[in-house]
């Protein structure tokens, strides 16, 4: 990489300087560069080698309460003036917006803690291919019914990023992210089922073993064979741990600033109200060491803080940036850019204990389509998974839907398992929900 943090800081400083010279009363700017390798092995052979190298800069200018922004992939010095000029041109046409502007200067991060996010992986394509091959070999060798493969992919990347604004804030840091994934096809009696598994981490040493990823992918694909459709019914539903983050995101989407000030949320005025049963705690920890979503400051330079979003089942706070906070006459929660390292505490049960508690119902291991309405809370998605009888997995099911209303689903959350084995940006076990409509035959 021909850039380092200092050279990016220099570009940001030039952008802010140029914005001031072109008449902006406030400005913010960011620059990022990244470099990486994506390598896929399929059926034992290297299929693609992609060398990635991305760069970009963006600037937002304010003329009083008028705002304009521009971005480009061109980092040459002449692009700085042109990009600022483009942003200023936009700002001449936007309207005065009382809520527009940078975040409060008092909220800027003063200290930038080292969150241990930079662990470069010096790996060449031959070594990457060897690891991907071990992963795919383990999947293909796991079961004779694994007859085809979409391959195993190793990704490694390192990025540098700097953000600054006209309050004098300037901060940046390097991050790395590596992942290994595998997708295989199981076949039996003319039926084909595909499934996958992956691992993602800031440091290569934190990735799951290649063989373990491959075997999990194979086991999941084989487990889907013989899937049948079930009759339409109402029953309890377990959302397996890998899918439970989507339910947390459904919550977050409903308590994000834009959904609230547009009155486009089923959780309007829910602050301080019970949304979940009283044992539920949902938190975020932006400072988690090596966390996949960790960040010492948000996209506006505001210091991030660990906090509870839901405590004792009661909604403690919204998810706001400075714009939506001003629209709501509140203060930013340091969430410009989203929720970071969300977590829902487990109620203590293992996955098997959740099955035993459910007795009869559906375990969902795949969700398809959108079908989650933030305005009304109406929820209806395609699904596949397993039917449970007498507290045991009975058989795989497919081509069904699960439907309900998110508000009732949250209220009907009976348990969260301690079965999370996926280190990701969201920490959650499987969710047992009291009752949903399952549509099939």
């Amino acid at each position, binding site marked *: 990489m021909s850039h380092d943090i200092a050279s990016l800081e220099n570009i940001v400083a030039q952008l802010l300087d140029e914005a001031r010279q072109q008449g902006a009363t406030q400005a913010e700017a960011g620059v990022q560069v990244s470099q990486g390798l994506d390598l896929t092995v399929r059926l034992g052979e290297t299929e693609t*080698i992609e060398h990635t190298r991305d760069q970009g800069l963006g600037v937002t200018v304010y003329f009083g309460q008028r705002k304009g922004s521009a971005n480009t992939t061109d980092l040459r010095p002449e692009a700085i003036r042109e990009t600022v000029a483009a942003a200023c041109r936009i700002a001449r046409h936007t309207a005065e917006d009382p809520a527009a502007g940078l975040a409060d200067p008092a909220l800027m991060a003063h200290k930038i803690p080292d969150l241990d996010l930079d662990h470069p992986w010096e790996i060449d394509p031959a070594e990457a291919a060897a690891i991907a091959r071990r992963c795919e070999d383990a999947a293909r060798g796991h079961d004779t019914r694994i007859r085809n493969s979409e391959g195993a992919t190793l990704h490694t990347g390192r990025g540098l990023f700097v953000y600054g604004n006209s309050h004098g804030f300037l901060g940046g840091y390097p991050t790395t992210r590596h992942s290994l994934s595998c997708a295989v*096809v199981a076949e039996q009696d003319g039926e084909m089922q595909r499934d996958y598994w992956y691992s993602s981490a800031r440091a290569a040493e934190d990735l799951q073993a290649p063989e373990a990823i491959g075997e999990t992918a194979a086991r999941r694909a084989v487990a889907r064979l013989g899937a049948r459709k079930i009759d339409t019914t109402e029953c309890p539903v377990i959302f397996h741990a890998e899918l439970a983050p989507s339910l947390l995101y459904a919550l977050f989407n409903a308590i994000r600033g834009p959904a609230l000030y547009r009155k486009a949320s089923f959780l309007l005025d829910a602050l301080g109200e019970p949304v979940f049963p009283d044992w539920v705690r949902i938190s975020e920890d932006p400072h988690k060491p090596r966390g996949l979503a960790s960040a010492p400051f948000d996209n506006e330079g505001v210091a991030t803080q660990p906090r509870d979003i839901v405590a004792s089942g009661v909604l403690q706070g919204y998810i706001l940036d400075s714009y939506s906070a001003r629209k709501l006459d509140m203060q930013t929660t340091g969430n410009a850019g989203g929720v970071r390292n969300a977590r829902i505490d487990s109620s203590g049960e293992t996955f098997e204990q959740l099955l035993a508690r459910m007795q009869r119902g559906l375990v969902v291991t795949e969700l398809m389509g959108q079908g989650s309405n933030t305005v009304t809370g109406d929820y209806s998605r395609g699904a596949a998974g397993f039917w449970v009888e007498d507290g045991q997995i009975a058989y795989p099911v497919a081509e069904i839907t699960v439907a309900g209303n998110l508000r009732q689903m949250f209220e009907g959350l009976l348990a969260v398992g301690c079965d999370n084995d996926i280190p990701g940006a969201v920490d959650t076990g499987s969710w047992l929900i009291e009752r949903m409509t399952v549509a099939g035959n």
Partner: protein
Amino acid sequence: MTDSLDIARATLLDAPGLGEQALVQVMDRLLSRQIDTADIYLQYSRLESWVLEDGIVREGNHSIEQGAGLRAVAGDKTGFAYTEDIDLPQLLEAAGTARAIARAGQSGRQAIASRRDLPQLYAPLNPIDSLDEAAKLALMRRLDEAARAADPRVQQVIVSLVAAQDTVLVIDDQGRLAGDVRPLVRVNVSVIVEQDGRREQGSAGGGARRGLDYFLEDERALGYAREAVRQALVNLEATDAPAGLLPVVLGPGWPGVLLHEAVGHGLEGDFNRKGTSAFSGRIGEQVASPACTVVDDGTLPERRGSLSIDDEGTPTQQTVLIENGILKGYMQDRMNARLMGVAPTGNGRRESYAHLPMPRMTNTYMLPGEHDPQEIIASVEHGLYAVNFGGGQVDITSGKFVFSASEAYLIENGKITRPVKGATLIGSGPEVMTRISMVGNDLQLDSGVGTCGKDGQSVPVGVGQPTLKIDELTVGGTAA
């Protein structure tokens, strides 16, 4: 200057100071004896977007993306590198990286030959300049006012306007140089309505490979505002959707997302070459009812999903996928066509220079049948009539697909009775297509809003269909 190739050459070769000699040098570096095909993809994209909310145009953005992607293919192995700096040293370095997929060897130099025999399905204009800023903003404010005037229950209106110009130049291993200048515009209106404490949303929009004047013709964009309000008000009256297997009648146009998910993705060449699609190895077989003829057509002038040439320089075409229910062919890019021993179909597309091309849809639609739409509805005793959809998704391997209705009605005794809430519909592509028993005579294409995602790459697409009846499909409502 109205020729796409000349504009693309001026933007991507002359402006950065690259000559044909430089391209020969880069291609020479990219090629070696073991390389079957290679290409250099140069791109310069400009995009401008505006958002109106709470009655004011509160933000706008101007974006420039440029770069070059270099690909070398040996057998079924691909080496790929890209650079944001379009200059000779960076291109040579990327070429050296990409060709590492094959062992080094010698190759003959290919002279560059500009292709001037290619179709031009849209004017190579820059839609950002097609209206001045005052006119763009005035249009957005008119849509806001129209939506608010349409009904007092309208609480919130968001209008977005996007204009983009994408200029590309593709040089293949034969030295053939093809250029394209692709305009694209899009307007969307979404509203929130409220009645007695109940809130619902509605959304409508459209777009084309045109200038922004497209939206002023026949008050087209005002139609989006009225349509968004109409949909939201219908949803205010909606009751719980049914759950279970039901006959489903799909309206014309955008519900064609059915075809995109149920058969479109499954007929892309890469999945079929690898044998991972539910349609693999089934050419010549009956995969749909005889009422179904489905095509992918990238040649419709000025449509969002159309391209004069695909991202590998191949002219687009109309490809018959299913004819009277029989599977006829797949959609191909160059690599998969070569490996399967067939001709490319002009479906090699990529999101940008930083992504590898793969087989993708353009405009995918079903040809009209013989039935009057009213006759189709009248044939259903108890079922669902779905006319608007959100997105969809498919599992290529099992064939299972979903698409989510955002406006639907119950059919009772052959008549549309009352609106029901949005629900996800799920089926198996190869099975559902055989259950299409009636096809209407009212083919419509969508209004120019589709975006398709595959392997993390987004490209604009179109869909369309006449009214059609599926005898049995699982409807994911809550009213058992």
